[in-house]
């Protein structure tokens, strides 16, 4: 059986951003989604590195699109979460909720 690995913060953000769009997600779209929701710009190369790690862990799958002229003849790579990916995101969300419940320091009061 494969060893269970924890998701890093960027990996989790990328996974959640890949789950969000109605149609298949791609690097630039995921990067924009993260920037919009977190207020932090993430370099595209970092997003692709995280996607590669997620793919190695079997949490997302990629499919190659058609090359287009506006992309300089390069094809777009689309990413889709797998069932394991959705499960991992769900578990991470529940763990974070459990860990943060009842923490008064997180309610906006300074300690």
């Amino acid at each position, binding site marked *: 059986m494969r060893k269970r690995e924890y998701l890093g913060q960027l990996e989790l953000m990328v996974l959640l951003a890949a789950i969000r769009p109605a149609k298949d997600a791609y*690097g630039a779209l995921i990067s924009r989604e993260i920037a919009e929701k977190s207020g932090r710009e993430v*370099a*595209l190369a970092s997003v692709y590195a995280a996607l590669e790690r997620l793919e190695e862990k079997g949490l997302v799958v990629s499919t*190659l699109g058609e090359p287009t002229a506006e992309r300089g003849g*390069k094809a777009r790579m689309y990413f889709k979460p797998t069932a394991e990916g959705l499960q991992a995101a769900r578990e991470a969300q529940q763990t974070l909720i459990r860990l943060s419940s009842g923490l008064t320091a997180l309610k906006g009061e300074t300690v």
Partner: protein
Amino acid sequence: MSERTPPALALWLLERCGSGAHAQSLTGDLIEEYRRGRSRGWLWREVAVALGVALGVALVRSIRTMPWMIVLRASLRLAAETAAVLAIAAIVDQSRRSQVNSAALDMGFVVIVAALITVASLAVVALIRTRSMTNRRHRPAEALVGLLMLAFGVIALGTGTFTRADTTRGGDGPRTECNCR
């Protein structure tokens, strides 16, 4: 309106040095975003990060997949360089001493220098022979280890030179005879 063309050098660097399964897709995304109105500064920053990420990934992969070979080659290189430097230092020291004291060639010195040259030569031969056992993927890790060793060598040699200079200066001063029995 004409389409904005991204800097050719940036794209060339990405294609030449970038890595990863999705390198083509990343380049395409960068071109697309640039044509949507991103600045040249943004594109160059992204390229710099991409090169850094590619180097980091290559380093981690090569260290994970074949650490023993990198350690072996680093040790061989260290042995070769140390032996060569020590041999040169011994020859320089001996020639300086024979100029000052007109001392005859010491047999011990000859043996030590011969041993050092042998060690350096053997290590160089082993390094050349093991080169074919590593592939291109391990070169970044090897380069990093080499760089660290060079830095260590420069620091060690510099410290050694200063220590020797201090000792020599101290040795030239007035000496007091020891009366102890």
